[in-house]
């Protein structure tokens, strides 16, 4: 026969195989997995891929590590460690082809020894990823989830004490102050809730979603909220009424740093700002596009922070440090040290990979986490910006 049956069947099979291959590859997890960390000054606690690592800050010795049994399960939220107990939530993973529902778990780990032992784990609390690092206060763990919840758990047992539901995901760690929790949500609201029972004290809607942890300033009775609406807002801690707001040039992804009455923050266009924490007056600004923002404000034109700033700055000894995504083409990150009072550049150094996560200062070293084959953690000298050490966690 001229037209055989088989070639068509083969074509069908070939098409189906092709579709299977492509669709399966489309389903692969995101390659981007930003390492993040928290610290209690003595140690770093790093989450990267399916692992959580406790690392001694001074020596960079591995103290303990916890590896998820499910290799496709990732951690993104840095753990909260207190009294030898780590509270952490995962990014969730589907349980297989026929059980595609994402299971998200919250864990209580005993990290007082050389190994991380699971005290408890709960997979019935959240249905969507945990992006925000948990917070432990007085034996209560506060865990924010992407399915709009703030959960209060007994840190010892994992028992749920109460839950608060926002209208959309909560990506920011809550901030605790005198029995109240301040929560910034992607639903554009900043909430103040009672930490004892989760009841809402006030809620204020801003004009942009928020992924930055609120910052409280009891001296001024203000709480600061950085938003995707290109502004940082200062709200009255008691009522939530907006006292002032200061414009940035782009989204402000991360929490401002508050030090000595000044608020420091960076935006997605790579501009950095220092404002008076009391009244929002811009003290100085630097960056590629900052020149057009406000006239009459001290400018620092020589500084060019290339790449978006998604991490919170850190301040120590009159120096403010910004981590940026750096040059997109070279795929290198950038770490910059500026004089806190003037914005004058002290040094800047490139890092092997873009910096998405908040840096931390331990001793005389500023530590940044990045997705790099050279080392997930890199320590730079605070004075000079010279690289001091690199650390690569053990593979699972």
């Amino acid at each position, binding site marked *: 026969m*001229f037209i055989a049956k088989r070639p068509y069947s083969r074509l069908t099979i070939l098409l189906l195989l092709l579709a299977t291959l492509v*669709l399966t590859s489309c*389903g692969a997890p995101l390659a981007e*997995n930003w390492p993040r960390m928290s610290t209690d000054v003595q140690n770093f606690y790093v989450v990267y891929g399916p692992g959580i690592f406790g690392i001694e800050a001074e020596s960079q010795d591995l103290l303990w590590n916890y590896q998820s049994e499910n290799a496709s399960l990732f951690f993104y939220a840095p753990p909260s460690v207190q009294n030898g107990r780590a509270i952490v939530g995962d990014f969730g993973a589907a349980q297989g082809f026929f059980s595609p529902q994402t299971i998200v778990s919250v864990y209580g780990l005993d990290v007082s020894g050389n190994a991380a032992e699971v005290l408890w784990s709960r997979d019935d609390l959240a249905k*969507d990823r945990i992006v925000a690092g948990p917070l432990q206060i007085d034996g209560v763990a506060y865990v924010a989830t992407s399915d709009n919840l703030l959960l209060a758990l007994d840190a010892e047992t994992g028992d749920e004490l109460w839950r608060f539901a926002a209208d959309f995901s909560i990506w920011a760690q809550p901030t605790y102050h005198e029995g109240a929790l301040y929560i910034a949500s992607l639903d554009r609201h900043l909430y103040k809730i009672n930490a004892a029972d989760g009841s809402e004290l006030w809620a204020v809607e801003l004009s942009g979603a928020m992924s930055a942890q609120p910052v409280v300033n009891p001296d001024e009775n203000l709480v600061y909220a950085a938003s995707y609406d290109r502004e940082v807002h200062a709200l009255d801690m008691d009522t939530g009424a907006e006292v002032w707001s200061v414009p940035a040039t782009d989204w402000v992804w991360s929490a401002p740093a508050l030090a000595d009455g000044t608020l420091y923050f960076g935006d997605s266009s790579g501009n950095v700002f220092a404002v008076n924490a009391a009244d929002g007056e811009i003290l100085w600004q630097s960056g590629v596009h900052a020149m057009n923002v406000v006239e009459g404000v001290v400018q620092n034109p020589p500084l060019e922070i290339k790449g978006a700033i998604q991490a919170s700055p850190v301040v120590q000894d009159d120096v403010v440090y910004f981590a940026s995504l750096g040059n997109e083409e070279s795929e290198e990150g950038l770490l910059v040290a500026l004089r806190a009072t003037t914005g004058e550049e002290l040094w800047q150094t490139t890092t092997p990979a873009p910096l*998405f996560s908040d840096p931390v200062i331990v001793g005389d070293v500023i530590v940044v986490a990045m997705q790099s084959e050279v080392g997930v953690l890199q320590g730079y000298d605070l004075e000079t910006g010279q690289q001091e050490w690199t650390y690569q966690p053990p593979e699972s």
Partner: protein
Amino acid sequence: MWDLLIINPITNALLWLYAVLGNNFILSLTVFTVITRILMLPLNLRQQRSMVKTQEMQPQIRAIQQKYKDNPQKMQEEFQKIGYNPAESLSGCLPLLATMPILFGLFQVLRLILGSTPQTLFELTQRVYPGINLTNLLPIESNFLWMNLGQPDPYYILPILVFVTMFVQTKFTSPSTAKKDDDKSKGNKKGGKDKQDDPTAAMTQSMQYTMPIMFGFFSLSFQAGLSIYFVLSNLIGIGQGLYTRRIMEAEKEALAREKELKAMGMNGDVGIPEAEMTKNEPVSSGNSKATQGSRKSRSQSKRKRRSAKR
């Protein structure tokens, strides 16, 4: 290139629709599906007509194949005479191939828009065109009924719907079904055997089952948003299939009427004889000329009948 031509345009189209349609993602997905189906409509119609036409020509094709099985060159010539091009039978796969980039693109785009992670949001910000104000659009509402559109349906309802709608759609657009129906109506018991001998029908038959099973299966792990796209797309396909079948049946009836009239000696000079029509109308061109021909003959028939009455 993939990002530039597929991902970014789909992303921005969905975001623009989301903004225009009152920040309702399911509505923007629906409109997007309708638009893509409309864009694909000429291709789908052409493919459907082509398949049906090929199916109708099977007796002639088989006869030629049988007669010239040892002389491929002559067979080709004979195929050309009846307006059949075997290579163009493969055009049946074209709509499927053409929709694949949209399918794969949408899979990635839904992960970007509804991904609900800082990584996906960051990536999204890099892809948004200047005219779209992402700040005003966030957060993008991802809940619809019991589902999070960015995650698989936990109750397996959508995979079942994908399977059912796709199965029904392939039934409606499949020429073998039409043929089978014809065979049944004519009491032709050889219908099944015909299909066995006919590779195109066999392929269509296998596609009727494998595609819905495959996509239903994949929908278990697809985002609910993508499964909804499938369901909507299939529903539109069903409507399109029904419409095309109705048109083609009407054309068939018209041809049959012409034959009857011709047999009665009333219309000896009107219309194009079927054999001549198939000879002159290449299959690959769909049925547009045939349609024109049949319309022409229908109008001529009407004129003739009117004059006969007078």
